């Protein structure tokens, strides 16, 4: 790895730093001191065991869903539907947790997770089929299905799944045997983060070191060449989308089984949309996604403390995330241009989402 490629690898870091710098301007607007606000943000995310536990809790769904978006990205698909897939995964896990009774945790938990994976995958399958069969861009269909998933869960917890007499729309608690265990006593931190980390490693190994992963990357990099090489592009795209949705679905399941223990209306505060940022800034690499998810989990966790102590609304971190994406997209495009001028690359800048996301094979 030359110095130049190392510098390019760090582009996401620069984008985030630049966005944080601009974020200071918003902090000032809110009438707070930027340095103090960021200090409180850091403290909130890491200073004590509760802050750190909250950081882990917020990292978990971002990591699951971010891995999902990354898998699709590597296959050349933009899955903006992680939010909807999170809802479907949460719903499936809740159904298994509510209605399957009498199983030991060692069976109940995997069963609920499996159901969530299947439900999330099914939610992503429709956009994949529409793209392959009817040529409809998965960008629009996954976006629309986010809202359908959100309202579907809302309708169910307001109707058939509603706890009788509950003041808000939520379901009765799941069976204890479907709870994900707590990993730091007296905090909310649950085993979902461990499952997510294991899956990050598994996704890395499968993508980089197995024939299936090679097919996915080949289809993402150059579909015509992949087809010429005898790879079934449609099948690979479908598989990648199902796995992508399934991973996001597990994010929903871990929220329900590890944190809330009930199915709530609108239980995801936009984790599925943040997951796009996470996957993109993580350059579609599972390990990069893990680092980015942790970073944004910390931001979300610390921002709550910053809101309380400095009066800076949490919304500021969404603006910062948006800016980071814009900076990275811009810098990647400029990078392609520089390469082109240098005669290194003949490809049009950012022609495919994979190239646009700066996804490169780690050679």
């Amino acid at each position, binding site marked *: 790895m030359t110095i130049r490629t190392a510098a390019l690898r760090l582009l996401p870091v620069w984008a985030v730093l630049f966005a944080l710098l601009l974020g200071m301007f918003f902090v000032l607007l809110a009438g707070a001191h930027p340095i103090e606000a960021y200090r409180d943000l850091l403290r909130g995310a890491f200073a004590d065991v509760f802050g750190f536990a909250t950081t882990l809790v917020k990292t978990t769904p971002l990591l699951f869903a971010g891995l999902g978006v990354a898998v699709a990205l590597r296959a050349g698909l933009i899955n903006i539907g992680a939010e909807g897939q999170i809802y479907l995964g949460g719903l499936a896990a809740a159904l298994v947790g509510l209605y399957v009774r009498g199983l030991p945790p060692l069976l109940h938990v995997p069963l609920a997770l499996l159901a969530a994976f299947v439900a999330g995958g099914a939610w992503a399958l429709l956009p994949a089929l529409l793209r392959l069969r009817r040529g409809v861009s998965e960008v629009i269909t996954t976006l629309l299905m986010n809202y359908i998933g959100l309202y579907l869960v809302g309708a169910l917890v307001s109707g058939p799944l509603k706890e009788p007499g509950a003041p808000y729309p939520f379901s009765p608690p799941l069976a204890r045997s479907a709870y994900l265990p707590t990993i730091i006593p007296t905090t909310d931190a649950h085993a979902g983060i461990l499952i997510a980390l294991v899956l990050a490693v598994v996704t890395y190994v499968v993508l980089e070191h197995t024939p299936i992963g090679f097919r996915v990357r080949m289809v993402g990099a150059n579909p015509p060449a992949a087809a010429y090489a005898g790879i079934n592009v449609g099948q690979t795209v479908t598989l990648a989308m199902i796995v992508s949705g399934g991973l996001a679905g597990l994010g929903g399941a871990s929220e329900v089984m590890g944190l809330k223990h009930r199915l709530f209306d609108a239980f995801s505060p936009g984790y599925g949309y943040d997951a796009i940022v996470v996957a993109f800034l993580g350059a579609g690499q599972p390990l990069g996604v893990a680092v980015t998810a942790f970073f944004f989990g910390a931001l979300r966790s610390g921002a709550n403390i910053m809101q309380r102590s400095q009066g800076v609304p949490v919304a500021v971190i969404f603006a910062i995330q948006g800016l980071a994406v814009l900076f990275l997209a811009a810098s*990647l495009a400029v990078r392609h241009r520089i390469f082109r001028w240098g005669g290194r690359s003949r490809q049009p800048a950012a022609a495919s989402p994979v190239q646009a996301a700066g996804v490169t094979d780690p050679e």
Partner: protein
Amino acid sequence: MATPIGLAAMGGVLSERSGVLNIGLEGMMLTGALAGAMGSHFLGGPWMGTLAALVAGAALGVVLAYLTVTLGANQIVTGVGINLFALGFTTFVERVVLRPAGIEAVPSFAQLAAPGLRAIPLLGPLLTNLTPLVLVAIVIAPILAVFLYRTPWGLALRATGEAPRAVDTAGVSVFLVRYIAVAASGALAGMGGAFLSLGQLNLFSENMTAGRGFIALAAVILGKWNPVGALAAAFLFGAAEALQLFVQSYGLGVPYQIPTMLPYVLALAVLAGFVSRAIPPAAEGIPYQQEEQ
């Protein structure tokens, strides 16, 4: 009901016809809704608010154009970034500016008196929010259609989306055409947003567009990249939204989410059924680069 989606969809048509997919419509609408409310409060009245929304939407359009046209950044990723930024930014401004100042209701558009229309049985009571912006939307559609199909500028815009190299060869700047189209697209989306905060309601609330910009993207496809078609498609989605209010007001005992889902399900069903016959502009999504010297 159909107006905000229709305005944004017509914006989407302009942008996509010039070769730029504008996923950022949602964020531009949301920013327009905020700018509309603030403009109406601080600058004096809903028309000034609408103007502010147009400017705010166009400004975001210029940002999108700079990133995707000048720098050649990926259009989808950039659009997603704009939506995220707009959601965070507008929520932030609502919390630190509007709320502390106690700004809740802002001056909004008066309902048009249309006694004839309201007398129509069943449909009449659904024609709520009949504000001047509805008429503006209905007037803009044919004007845009004439512009696109009957003027040399319209031809240049359509050609830019199909064969930018040819446009460049003819001495027309592809960059300039795309900048103007995307800025206009943002302005129209912004006006759609202003309709929400100044026509349908008289205030800005967090994430008040709730995905209408994405439905507008579906309306662009369903309307086959034609402004009149896009507005007609928006009426279909608007009708689904109106039906939702109808179901709710008659209290049929179903959770409100079921009818709320309707426009999204309809958009998806329509895309699944219709798109094989609709072909987007050939150069959509591809950044244009001039030949190397």
